[in-house]
């Protein structure tokens, strides 16, 4: 799924509340799934889950980490890594400029946050995609940070948890972005030596090169309800086979049915379930 197909409405809701264009839009949100109009502070208090239908709307990475890890336990690493423009890539905008404006509006250096935290007192090496940053696309910085999540887990001999939400490779970095699939897999392969669990949590959406590398290599693979997960995006598949896709195709529920992931877990239950898995395996 390409990152720009995301509706701007959602991007605004996700921009840490910094860019709310009007008071009306700022205070009220419409559920994507049931069209219910929700008072935004109410939605945020409910972890961006629609109170009417239970739809899991996107949830900012930092809020997610703060709520799922022990209070105040998260220490971010690799904050000095910054993306470059190795190919001098330009489409409608120069990649360099696109990076600059995105960084400014989101206050994030790139599409991934990694560090150490705790769940019920147990240290975990953890990372989370920032989907609003160019669709969570994986370039060199994202790949490096993911690899370092596994390396810190390897050094600390602790579990690793990664929350993925990504449209796949960042094509503006060309072959470098493709090679991040191999790089992250190499780091993960080495982490397996310490025999600690790696839990992959797939959020909406997880596709392309992220799905086809570390995200699908979890010892345990969890998804949020209705998350879109797959290799090719639905549009590409429809163009290739020239037919409409069945409803629910590539959704988390579909993947469980086909034996491709372990479990779908409600956002409110995730912390407790993660703790349970770590307790059983770590």
């Amino acid at each position: 799924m390409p990152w720009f197909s995301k509706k701007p409405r959602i991007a605004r809701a996700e921009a840490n509340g910094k860019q709310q264009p009007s008071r009306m839009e700022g205070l009220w949100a419409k559920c994507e799934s049931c069209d219910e109009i929700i008072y935004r502070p109410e939605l945020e208090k409910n972890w961006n889950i629609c109170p009417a239908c239970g739809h899991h709307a996107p949830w900012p990475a930092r809020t997610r980490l703060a709520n799922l890890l022990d209070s105040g336990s998260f220490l971010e690493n690799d904050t000095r890594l910054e993306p470059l423009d190795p190919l001098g890539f330009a489409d409608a905008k120069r990649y360099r400029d696109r990076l600059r404006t995105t960084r400014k509006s989101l206050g994030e250096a790139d599409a991934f946050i990694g560090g150490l935290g705790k769940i019920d007192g147990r240290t975990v090496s953890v990372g989370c995609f920032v989907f609003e940053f160019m669709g969570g696309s994986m370039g060199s910085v994202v790949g490096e940070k993911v690899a370092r999540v596994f390396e810190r887990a390897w050094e600390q001999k602790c579990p690793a948890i990664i929350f993925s939400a990504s449209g796949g490779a960042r094509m503006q970095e060309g072959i470098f972005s493709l090679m991040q699939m191999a790089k992250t897999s190499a780091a993960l392969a080495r982490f397996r030596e310490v025999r600690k669990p790696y839990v992959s949590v797939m959020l909406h959406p997880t596709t392309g090169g992220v799905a086809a590398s570390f995200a699908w290599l979890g010892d345990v693979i969890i998804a949020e309800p209705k998350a879109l997960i797959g290799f090719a995006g639905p549009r590409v598949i429809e163009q290739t086979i020239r037919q409409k896709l069945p409803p629910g195709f590539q959704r988390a529920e579909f993947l469980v049915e086909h034996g491709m992931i372990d479990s779908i877990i409600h956002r409110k239950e995730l912390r407790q379930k993660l703790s349970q898995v770590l307790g059983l395996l770590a």
Partner: protein
Amino acid sequence: MAGMSYALDFERPLLELEKKIEELKTLSHTGAMDFGAEISKLEKKAARLQQEIFSELTRWQVVQLSRHPSRPYFLDYLGHLFTDFFELAGDRHFAEDASIVGGFARFEGLPVMVIGHQKGRGTKENMLRNFGMPRPEGYRKARRLMELAERFGKPILTFVDTPGAYPGIGAEERGQAEAIAVNLEVMCRLKVPIISTVIGEGGSGGALAIGVGNRILMLENSIYSVISPEACSSILYRDPTRAERAAESLKLTAKDLLGIKIIDELVPEPPGGAHRDPARATAHLGKALKRHLSELRAMSPEQLVQHRYLRFRALGSFAGR
């Protein structure tokens, strides 16, 4: 090989000239007239024209050459560089996928595992080979074969030539992304030498899934890219006809990738491309493979794994530490 039945636009002037030379030669042979002087003049002209066309190809022209229907495919190289091929089929779970071919064979007398994407020639074979676009079964077969090779301590030589992994309903249902992901990790820890050569199209994750080698080689007119120029241009410019511009931006040729140290060697092709002289292209490839394989065979299993780890761990371009 299909011969010269198909010609790219920029090849055509040269092919027409060569056809004329052939005709004059035939006439000379029949003894009707002597065209010796004319022929040698035209041959000089052809050599000049070849130099002109092929010395400064645009990236888009290289893309076209990499997909040339007359270009040697994996099985063509297999037939000439290897002996004793014993094909192994099926993923043992669901199906046989003929878009990836693999098996044991001998290279310079040495038993090895060979695995490659295979495109088809003509409609019937392209249906069988799915235009070189594997489904999960293809990747799972490749994984099975690679693990088999490791069990018997045999080096693995892979040959990449695919537009990409197939985007279809069944492929998604059966875990296309999972199949690719598992191959990446498995290849990272195999304790035998792995050499991957891009011989045509290196299409994204579907290529990388058999491409995690201690060495990555590319034939001169092959490409390796995170996305096809066509798909890139329809996403970025909302216009698939600007693929030419996308190809320039993506920097996807062997020359580009050698320059940024993604690949280890560019294997030269005969003037005009591998399809103009497959025997010579094969000879160049054989020589390169032999050299890299003998270097890698000097390494211990642990060294090989460590080497591959460091090779891929280092890839990326960013600021800060």
